């Protein structure tokens, strides 16, 4: 690995006539006068003043995955910074990213393969060699292949992205199991399902660099977001540099709400209703823009005129008056009118929605209301509006697939639980295993994942993981001993993200894709292995051919295969520079307007929907295509070509998920109607909230700026700042219960009870308690849980451990939050829980 070319990093540093000064005492040097400092890209030891080795790589603390620079001194990683040449991050890194160093060196890190020697949960382990570990693992997998039941290997992951995801799927394809559990339904699955039902794809970002007005529902973008650094810095800059207003609707005064032009407190689960009331105002007062109507479907009629559509939208939202919304949501009607007018009249505007909006009953429908607000003001994928995030399109090697491909139907919830679990229903994966009606895996492999902490009713998850009758063989690939790995039979020591290779692809809010890689900053500590090497080791023992032997080789091949990256210099270029983007690329806003050539062989126009599709690609005859139509032929959506938009075939919004739809934005959704859900975005009261007793409160959870959900408690610099998570409660609500600041309180419901501390505050609406969900760890090493892990650390003991000064480690709310899914999307309903609160 070579040092970065310094010139790359000098672009922000202005030239200067002054040379480096000789400096202090002859040993230090000082700049003077007009000399400008460069922002970053180089670093020096504070003790020796020596320049550190700079290596470009990528973060992994959260899914944002910022490109960054790692600084190494004598083989030890000492510092991380944003990559100055990244068009996404602009050289910035958040608190979590800065604390990535802790991931490598925390003293409880798992560094060797460990075999369980006591009962599950007894925490008795024996260190074994990798050969022994892989032989054992392969001995459990071989019988599955021999018996023709590869699906009995379940791979349950938390975050696998970029090449970590593709290489895992490659291995599972080669093995033949499609029993793969994800975690998106506990994050923000309903948001994506709502979007997929409309514009086919998912992942909106916001063009803050050009926007004039921002309305935020339920997102804490200044503290945490799936694209945090790229978006939040642009938002605060827009606010201060260009006086762009930001209005935040939230139940809690988050840092985002605090920095907003105005925080508008709103009752739990009312975001969609207030959005519909804004639509009501915009339609009634004629503030809408007609531009996007031609791409919208708002009634069963695919060919409705603009006037018909306007009338239909007005009719749909007629009952959602600001006054009605005020009654339900607590937001004053005048405030709704004011913000609706400002939003609609702004030249461009962004509508943000996130977990506060969607992690509810019918959360997917609330996201559809957010899209409606964007569409009627022509702010969908327009400059300054809500845009489709653009990510890198990597090519990668493929190993031969197994002939037999099977999967257990245990990742989409119980039968009938969710209509469109396109992002699974992963909170029910373990309960489905317990239930057993759709089968049980014999080998459960958990990687970068902590099912016993992250799901609702996590005590049940623990019990299932502990039961050898339900899960006969359990493997955990991990860096830290946690709530899930404590019940494993075999623990495999994972590398940290700072010791491994990956290509990466997280989206850019600028409309231009960034290609970037992750490369090891140091040699893996102890005997930590990258999962790619584990796949190769297993494949060798199982007689499976893979297209690579190491992860580095996989990433190298990907760099040589991927157009753009290849021409720039491939792997060699990426190792040296870390990031690449097409300098000539322009933001592709308004992608739906692209005209499409429909003269190709097999392309016909479906009169009913206005869809051009290729019946030959769909594998049917012309006669069958014409008689059954686009909607009547299974798989026809994969043969979508274009949508007839007022006589012109345009790309429009192609379907690309399990939703069969035309190229129009399906604000009237047959898919939803067919399953008994509202065809048009509406307000559906949350059932549990309709029968709350006088003393019942809502329980909501949230994130803070310095932790991820479950993978940072062992990072000392983060837990030092946030190690306790008292329950926020409004002073009025607290007073009604005789609760004062710092009192111990019990939060309970039918599922159980937790004891925690009250934080009495004016920064939350009355009638709820809010508890952040990072803390209350059973195990996460000394920094995360206060107790040492039972696995032998091989890392040098951290001399800082004796400086720990806090003895609180918080309380985890998930044990009193049931696993309960949005019936539309399968998303976990984190924000619908009802509790009672009393002094302990």
């Amino acid at each position, binding site marked *: 690995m070579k040092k970065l070319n310094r010139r790359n990093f000098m672009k922000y540093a202005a030239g200067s006539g002054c040379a480096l000064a000789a400096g*202090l005492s002859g040993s230090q040097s*000082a700049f003077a006068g*007009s000399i400008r400092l460069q922002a970053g890209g180089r670093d020096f030891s504070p003790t020796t003043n020596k320049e550190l080795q700079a290596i470009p790589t990528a973060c992994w603390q959260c899914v944002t995955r910022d490109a960054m620079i790692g600084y190494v001194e004598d083989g030890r990683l000492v510092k991380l910074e944003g990559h100055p040449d990244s068009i996404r991050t602009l050289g910035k890194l958040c608190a979590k990213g800065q604390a990535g160093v802790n991931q490598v060196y925390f003293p409880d890190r798992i560094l060797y393969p460990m075999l369980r020697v006591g009962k599950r949960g007894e925490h008795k382990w024996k260190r074994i060699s990798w050969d022994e570990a892989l032989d054992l693992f392969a001995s459990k997998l071989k019988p599955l292949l021999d018996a023709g039941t590869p699906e009995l290997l379940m791979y349950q992951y938390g975050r696998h992205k970029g090449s970590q995801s593709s290489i895992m799927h490659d291995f599972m394809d080669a093995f033949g199991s499609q029993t793969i559990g994800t975690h998106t339904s506990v994050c923000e699955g309903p948001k994506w399902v709502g979007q997929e039902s409309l514009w086919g794809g998912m992942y909106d970002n916001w063009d803050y660099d050009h926007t004039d007005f921002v309305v935020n529902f339920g997102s804490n973008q200044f*503290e945490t977001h799936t694209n945090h650094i790229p978006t939040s810095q642009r938002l605060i800059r827009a606010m201060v540099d260009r006086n762009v207003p930001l209005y935040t609707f939230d139940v809690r005064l988050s840092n985002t709400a605090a920095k907003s032009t105005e925080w508008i407190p709103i009752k739990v689960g009312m975001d969609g209703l207030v959005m519909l009331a804004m639509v009501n105002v915009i339609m009634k007062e004629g503030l809408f823009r007609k531009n996007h109507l031609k791409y919208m479907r708002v009634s069963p009629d695919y060919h409705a005129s603009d006037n018909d559509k306007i009338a239909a939208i007005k009719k749909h939202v007629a009952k959602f008056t600001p006054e009605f919304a005020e009654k339900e949501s607590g937001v004053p009607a005048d405030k709704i009118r004011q913000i609706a007018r400002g939003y609609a009249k702004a030249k461009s505007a962004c509508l943000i929605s996130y977990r506060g909006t969607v992690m509810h009953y019918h959360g997917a429908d609330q996201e559809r209301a957010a899209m409606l607000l964007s569409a009627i003001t022509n702010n969908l994928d327009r400059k300054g509006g809500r845009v489709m995030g653009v990510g890198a399109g990597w090519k990668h090697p493929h190993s031969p697939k197994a002939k037999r491909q099977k999967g257990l139907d245990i990742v989409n919830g119980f039968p009938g639980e969710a209509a469109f679990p396109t992002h699974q229903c992963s909170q029910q994966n373990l309960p489905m295993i317990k239930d057993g009606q759709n089968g049980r895996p014999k080998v459960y492999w958990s990687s970068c994942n902590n099912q016993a902490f992250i799901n609702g009713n996590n005590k049940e998850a623990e019990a299932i993981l502990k039961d050898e009758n339900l899960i006969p063989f359990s493997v955990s690939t991990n860096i830290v001993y946690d709530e899930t790995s404590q019940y494993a039979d075999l623990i495999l020591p994972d590398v940290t993200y700072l010791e491994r290779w990956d290509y990466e692809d997280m989206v850019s809010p600028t409309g231009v894709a960034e290609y970037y890689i992750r490369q090891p900053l140091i040699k893996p500590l102890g005997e930590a292995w990258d999962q790619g090497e584990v796949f190769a080791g297993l494949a060798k023992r199982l007689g499976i051919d893979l297209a690579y032997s190491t992860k580095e080789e996989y990433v190298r091949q990907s760099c040589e295969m991927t157009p753009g990256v290849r021409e720039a210099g491939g792997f060699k270029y990426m190792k040296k520079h870390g990031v690449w983007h097409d300098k000539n690329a322009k933001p592709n806003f308004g992608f739906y307007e692209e005209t499409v050539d429909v003269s190709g062989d097999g392309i016909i126009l479906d009169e009913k929907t206005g869809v051009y599709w290729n019946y030959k690609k769909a594998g049917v005859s012309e006669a069958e295509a014409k008689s059954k139509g686009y909607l009547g032929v299974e798989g026809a959506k994969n043969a979508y070509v274009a949508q007839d938009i007022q006589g012109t075939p345009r790309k429009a919004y192609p379907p690309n998920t399990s939703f069969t739809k035309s190229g129009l934005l399906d604000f009237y959704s047959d898919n939803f109607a067919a399953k008994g859900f509202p065809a048009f975005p509406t307000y559906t009261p949350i059932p549990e909230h309709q029968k709350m007793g006088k003393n019942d409160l809502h329980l909501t959870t949230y994130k803070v700026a310095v932790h991820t959900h479950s993978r940072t408690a062992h990072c000392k610099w983060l837990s030092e700042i946030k190690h306790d998570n008292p329950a926020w409660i409004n002073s009025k609500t607290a007073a009604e219960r005789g609760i004062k600041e710092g009192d111990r309180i019990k939060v309970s419901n039918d599922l159980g009870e937790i004891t925690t501390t009250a934080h009495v505050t004016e920064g939350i609406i009355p009638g709820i308690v809010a508890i952040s969900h990072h803390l209350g760890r059973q195990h996460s090493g000394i920094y995360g849980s206060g107790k040492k892990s039972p696995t032998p650390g091989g890392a040098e003991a951290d001399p800082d451990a004796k400086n720990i000064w806090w003895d609180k480690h918080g309380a985890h709310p998930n044990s009193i939050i049931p696993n309960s899914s949005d019936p539309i999307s399968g998303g976990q309903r984190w924000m619908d829980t009802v509790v009672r609160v009393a002094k302990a």
Partner: protein
Amino acid sequence: MSDKKTPEISRRNFLSGVGTAVVGAAAVATPTVKLEAAQAKAPRWAMVMDLRRCIGCRACTVACKSENHVSLGRFRAVIQEKTMGTFPNTKKAFLPLMCNHCEGNKKDGVPPCVKACPEFPGERAKFKTADGKTIRYRSGATYKRPDGMILIDKEKCIGCGKCIDACPYGVRSFDPFVKAGGDPTKQAADKCDMCAHRVDNGVEPSCVNTCQGRARIFGDLNDPGSEVSKLVKEHNLAKDANVLLAQEGTNPHVFYIDPDNLLKTLYTQRKKGKLDHFVDQIT
């Protein structure tokens, strides 16, 4: 919270002025920023904290921990935050704090921490400027360099703690990892040194590098073309209301753009003999 009257400071404009800056030219004449006008050969490093842009994310806090190997239990940089008002008219705001790298009072130009140091004034030390001139100054275990940085020489430090007590801002603490060179039975004092090891090598301090809101602006007040000079001038920051504890007469060189008057309403001062105001915590 944004101040609508504030003119836009675009990075492009800022950079375009760079080449024309004259070394040592006085940028502003103010009561508290004393510029060495014609003689100034060294920079005068200073920080501007634009509170409109601070989102309380703590990237600076953690970057500083990492950059400077700061032990648990103490900080060189923190954010104080406070929730104010009554629901629903509630506000919450953030105030980044660090060593103020004070110029010292107008009479002797020695900040209280330096004055308290038994090892000050020590032997004469030399500071070489960019144009090759030498500026002589008094060393100490805690001392003021001619470029304005208040630094600690841990080899000279005797671990007496007098500087820790003397700092009205309470930004100093004992480093459990570093022995005091002057008395190895004790620990050396430690605090923010403006990342001198980076600045001396031409790179911005680590907290500035990672500040996503670009709330921290670092630069040379002796250079009228620097962004800090421009901000001090445009926002009229060189006055009591825009620095912490002006009444102490320390002449701080961390200036706050503070349209919401947070220095008055939010700042939690140290309690005598205590440093818990300088431990960064999120409730």
